[in-house]
């Protein structure tokens, strides 16, 4: 929280000529995560449980400025409209659905400018959104820092023109060197700490798409973390996620596998402690994500949380959260920073959830665990050549953020017949506790068809998980609950370089094909229902200082599951939860969270109309809801402008061009 106030206070001292806000009363949202701590928190309290009935749509905006659409009629932007605006100096800035920065008026949503040069052709207009953009200022020099495609951009906050002194006429090429020029993806956007721009991202794999968690290649580029000078765009430093020769962590890569294994980047948001000058990066799985016979050892810094010196990129500390990852169990959530009292002692903490659904708390200066972490024995692989880690780190104080492992008690049981089908279906798979490894698909009719893994490949906790309430010291995990099939086969197409890869399960109605590598998919009954019990997603509140769970509530609803014909005449709970990736906003008293859209890839989400809800942050009780035309595609944010509090939500979905909806008290 303090960092947000510091930044806001700095802004008050240097109000530029273009600033239209009212510094005396405006409350900004200066980072996509609310503040550099990524708390997704604002102290605003004008909108409260007592007046939610008066909350109404203040304005909406399309996901791309209509003038661009008119000029390029074939432009059909992606409905995955990720951008959460920041609000600084009386203006909202956001990455639009084609990745260009747009500046809006906070009271009306009216366009101030679009980043230029404006696209003249579809080729130039084609692009994708990022979740966040950053703001930097020095005196009258005010810049918006953004990532679009293969470039890092600096744009004048006053008028949307490129900062010509930055890189090559306002942009810097940031693609990693890969063997076949695979594209860079920086969908979470940059982070600015002091005068350094820090970027993570992904795209180190060897195939178009750039994802290392699919396919059958073990070779990939390491997705290093990089720091750039915010004034010039010069590369200042590179943190090597694959340890260099002089780093002891190199020893965790047997068989010289450090020479060719890659990925491990931070595709989820970064966070920072500006006072310490540290940036926190959640790192991800190595290649291949599901088979590690070629990479014996713990494989540091894969699936780790690292703290880096923002000025130099020097590693301050690292904590590996999954050893020798075989599940694509990334640290995929933003590291959330907050100050908590533990046994009377003030701890500067960083809280980290990951795909397996652990919640870890570390001293963010030293990396020491605040609550004990225990290495516990885990099931061992039966796949030839695999080197399963004998133990994995378990959080001892905090129960998992969602279902971990698959047991009979976890299977769906809306009716006895549904439960029976689930039991029969699941009997064809290997099941067990958390960290049960992938297994081979046995082609014999009675053979097991792989391992049913929960949490599945998108994790219990993904980028949307994590928020912190500095008022109470509570951390909020937002999770999803689907079990995926991890069935390995031996690729024989001659192109694959891994001995084993995940076998694609054919789509219903598709003609038979050669066995192909893919990513694990959710296991569903013949009716389409997931095999696990609801809720399909949760909000779980934890008291970090006391080391305990406070409450759990479904994170929303899934209208498609509710309408499933198999559930006709079945009495369902008021909320089923949603396995999409909806992100929370915390205010003085409330949590805002919307059902996620199916425009977000990840095997889930709501198709068509959805619901935005407000929860009481102390209890998890739903205190208000309103219907939205399509589901959320990014995180909500809030600000106060000229004395009025607004809540803005990015949305997107088939057949709907609305990009952002703003709510405020009273009608427009």
């Amino acid at each position, binding site marked *: 929280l303090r960092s947000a106030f510091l930044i806001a206070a700095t802004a008050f001292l240097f109000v530029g000529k273009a600033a239209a806000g009212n510094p005396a009363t405006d409350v900004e949202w200066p980072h996509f995560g609310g503040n550099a701590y990524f708390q997704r928190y604002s102290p605003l309290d004008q909108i409260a449980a007592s007046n939610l009935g008066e909350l109404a749509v203040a304005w909406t905006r399309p996901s791309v400025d209509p003038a661009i659409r008119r000029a390029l009629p074939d432009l059909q932007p992606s409905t995955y409209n990720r951008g959460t605006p920041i609000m600084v100096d009386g203006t909202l800035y956001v990455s639009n659905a084609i990745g260009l920065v747009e500046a809006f008026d906070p009271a009306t949503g009216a366009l101030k400018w679009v980043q230029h040069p404006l696209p003249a052709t579809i080729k130039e207009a084609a*692009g994708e959104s990022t979740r966040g953009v950053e703001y930097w200022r020095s005196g009258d020099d005010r810049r918006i820092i953004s990532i679009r495609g293969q470039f890092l951009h600096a744009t004048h906050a006053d008028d949307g023109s490129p900062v010509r002194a930055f890189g090559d006429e306002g942009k810097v090429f940031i693609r990693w060197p890969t063997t076949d020029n695979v594209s860079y993806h920086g969908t979470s956007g940059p982070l600015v700490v002091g005068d350094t721009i820090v970027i993570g991202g992904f795209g180190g794999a060897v195939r178009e798409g750039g994802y290392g968690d699919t396919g059958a290649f073990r070779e990939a580029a390491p997705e290093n973390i990089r720091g750039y000078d915010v004034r010039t765009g010069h590369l200042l430093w590179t943190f090597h996620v694959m340890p260099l020769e002089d780093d002891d962590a190199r020893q965790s890569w047997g068989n010289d596998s450090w020479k060719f294994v890659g990925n491990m980047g931070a595709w989820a948001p970064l966070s920072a402690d500006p006072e310490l000058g540290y940036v926190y990066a959640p790192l991800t799985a190595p290649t291949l994500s599901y088979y590690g016979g070629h990479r014996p050892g713990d494989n540091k810094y894969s699936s780790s949380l690292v703290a880096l010196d923002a000025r130099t990129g020097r590693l301050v500390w690292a904590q590996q959260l999954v050893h020798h990852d075989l599940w694509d169990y990334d640290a995929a959530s933003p590291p959330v920073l907050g100050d908590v009292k533990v046994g009377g002692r003030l701890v500067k903490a960083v809280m980290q959830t990951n795909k397996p659904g652990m919640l870890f708390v570390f001293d963010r200066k030293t990396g020491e665990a605040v609550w004990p972490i225990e290495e516990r024995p885990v099931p061992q692989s039966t796949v030839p050549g695999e080197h399963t880690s004998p133990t994995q780190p378990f959080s001892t104080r905090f129960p998992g953020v969602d279902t971990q492992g698959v047991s009979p008690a976890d299977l769906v049981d809306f009716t006895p017949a549904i439960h029976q089908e689930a039991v029969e279906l699941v009997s064809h798979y290997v099941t067990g506790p958390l960290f049960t490894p992938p297994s081979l698909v046995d082609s014999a009719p009675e053979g097991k068809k792989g391992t049913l893994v929960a949490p599945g490949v998108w994790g219990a906790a993904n980028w949307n998980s994590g928020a912190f309430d500095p008022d109470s010291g509570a951390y909020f995990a937002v999770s999803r609950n689907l079990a995926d099939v991890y069935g390995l086969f031996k690729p024989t197409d001659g192109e694959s370089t891994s001995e084993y890869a995940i076998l694609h399960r*054919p789509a219903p109605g*598709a003609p038979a094909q050669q066995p192909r590598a893919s990513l694990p998919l959710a296991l569903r009954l013949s009716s389409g229902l997931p095999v696990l019990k609801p809720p399909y997603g949760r909000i779980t509140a934890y008291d970090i200082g006391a080391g305990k769970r406070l409450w759990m509530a479904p994170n929303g609803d899934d209208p498609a599951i509710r309408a499933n014909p198999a559930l006709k005449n079945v009495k369902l709970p008021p909320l089923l939860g949603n396995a999409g990736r909806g992100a929370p906003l915390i205010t003085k008293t409330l949590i805002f969270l919307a059902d996620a859209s199916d425009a977000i890839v990840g095997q889930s989400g709501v198709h068509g109309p959805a619901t935005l809800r407000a929860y009481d942050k102390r209890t998890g009780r739903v205190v208000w809801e309103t219907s939205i035309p399509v589901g959320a595609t990014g995180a909500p944010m809030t600000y106060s402008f000229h004395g009025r509090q607004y809540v803005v939500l990015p949305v997107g979905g*088939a057949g709907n061009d609305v990009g952002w909806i703003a709510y405020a008290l009273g009608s427009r």
Partner: protein
Amino acid sequence: MGAEPAADLLFTAEQSSLGQQLYEQKCGGCHAPDLGEGSHGPALRGEHFWATWADKSARELYGRILSTMPSGDPGSLSQRQVLALTAFILATNGYPAGATSLDSPAQLDTVKITKAAP
């Protein structure tokens, strides 16, 4: 099949086949090889396809591919390539190939994507 006659015989088998080759090169990293539910891309056949595209114009589908794909390098496909991919996706969803070649996106203007009657 398309409800309107214009929807039938819209592209040649060669175009659809070219589209399939392109799909395997450019799209198969994220979308499933059989156009079912993919790792990082939605299903392009079956219920999900109809829920997203039924009653929309085929020109919109063309525009969406042209504007957004492949992820990470959108805008890199030529008009001819995108027409072939559009043909392949339509063919996968029950539209028959014919003798007429799909040479211009304008040919898609009047084609409404319509779910085939069972």
